[in-house]
């Protein structure tokens, strides 16, 4: 197929072409190699969970996809767009414009929510659609309220983040990310900073999202039961590589690799 055509969201090719593709990606922080010749692909609409010990590089995968971290070697494409430009400069080897184009397809939900504390909930969800997508405030607010309703927080639209519980903040953060209409949504340990009794409400929202077929989701989580429930595929990470991957049922009930078994034993008890 023609390369230019492959970048179009063509329905026929979409099923065959991965929306995310890492080919031999190596990421180093100084002398430390975090990802080593990393290969990984995600199909459109697929829900993939990354599990593994901390420091194994799971979050780095998301941060690279969100262009928060550059990588040194290999190739990465999102929706057919390569991250590196042929003559790209700077650590990202791409122009701001190119990075802007990549980011328009991907959104991220952070462990520490990172809501804007000086803005109301509604403003948090409308700010980027107005500033970046160029929506009118009225239109952005209309969409924001729909999204807030979806996460069960429409009545909190005039509150400020500090007035909300952690779980509510994270649900607002999910609405905020969705307001940019990403094709790919990344969740970086979305419940790790929450009190145990607040985890459920956030997982509930993510679970509902996962039932939507077009949204591609990549989750890093320590909630194993949840991972088993929502994902199409689970990848076990260790030392910058995927040691084992497969359907959640198989990974959780019959892991083939000893390291996977050890890890699951330690977290499931």
């Amino acid at each position: 197929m023609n390369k230019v055509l492959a970048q179009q969201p063509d329905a026929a090719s979409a099923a065959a072409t991965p929306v995310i593709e890492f080919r031999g990606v190596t990421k180093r922080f100084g002398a430390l190699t975090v990802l080593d010749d990393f290969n990984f692909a995600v199909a459109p609409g697929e829900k993939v969970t990354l599990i593994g010990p901390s420091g194994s590089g799971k979050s780095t995968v998301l941060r690279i996809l969100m262009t928060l971290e550059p990588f040194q070697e290999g190739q990465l494409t999102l929706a057919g767009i390569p991250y590196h430009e042929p003559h790209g400069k700077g650590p990202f080897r791409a122009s701001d414009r190119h990075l802007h184009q990549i980011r328009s397809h991907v959104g991220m939900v952070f462990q520490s929510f990172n809501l804007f504390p000086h803005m109301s909930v509604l403003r948090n969800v409308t700010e980027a659609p107005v500033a970046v997508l160029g929506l009118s405030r009225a239109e952005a607010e209309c969409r924001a309220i729909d999204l807030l309703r979806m996460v069960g927080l429409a009545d909190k639209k005039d509150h400020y983040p500090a007035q909300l519980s952690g779980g509510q903040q994270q649900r607002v953060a999910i609405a905020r990310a969705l307001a940019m209409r990403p094709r790919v949504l990344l969740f970086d340990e979305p419940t790790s900073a929450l009190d145990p009794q607040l985890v459920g409400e956030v997982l509930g929202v993510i679970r509902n999202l996962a039932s939507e077929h077009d949204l591609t989701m990549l989750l890093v989580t320590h909630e194993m039961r949840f991972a088993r429930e929502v994902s199409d595929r689970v990848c076990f990470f260790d030392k910058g590589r995927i040691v084992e991957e497969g359907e959640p049922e198989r990974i959780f009930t019959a892991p083939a690799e000893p390291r996977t078994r050890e890890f699951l034993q330690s977290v499931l008890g």
Partner: protein
Amino acid sequence: MMYGYAWDLTTPLTYAASILPILLIGLTVTLQAAAAGFALALVLGLAFALLRRSRIKAVALATAFVVEFLRDTPLLVQLFFLYYVLPDYGITLPAFLTGVIALGLQYSAYTSEVYRGGIEAIPRGQWEAATALNMTRWQTYRDIVIPQMVPRIVPTMGNYLVAMLKETPVLSVVTVLEMLGLANMIGERTFEYLVPLSMVGIIFLLLTLICSAGIHRLEKVLPKAGIPLR
């Protein structure tokens, strides 16, 4: 006699009352110079702070050099330079404007450091969230970073405002007729310095007290989390 007001040296009180209108004329000049100088320092300081964070190394380095230079040379030297040296190169500015520029430049070096600290205090997660929402660097500064920085820097900026206010008498050396300069001239003509100089001291004390109270009030009124600019 000055500005149409004659002094009355009968008693210290009548003397004080008779020269008060003259000093108040000087006070307006002092206030104008401080207000204009501080406004310049606030704008220029922010520009310096942002340029210093530029991703273009040369721009960041050049800005750092300029800021360091402004900060490490005396205000009086900068003032004399602007007033006496620039005319040799065909740039002649009115005394008042020269004073405002000198004050603004010197204090912009200080305010740029305050801004820098304020910007660096914004958690990294805020930048990352803005990036994840595809906001540009400029939009991130405008909508996320600067609005959150403002409440944090108000107290320090207030200190610099008071400091600048107290430094405005320096402008009298380049013939700006501000309050202290006028008091001095009154003294020269009447051979009686105690009253005019004491009055200037008291007026400055009142000014700084009012300023500090105003800043304190502003600190209380501003929302701690920041104010959206748009």
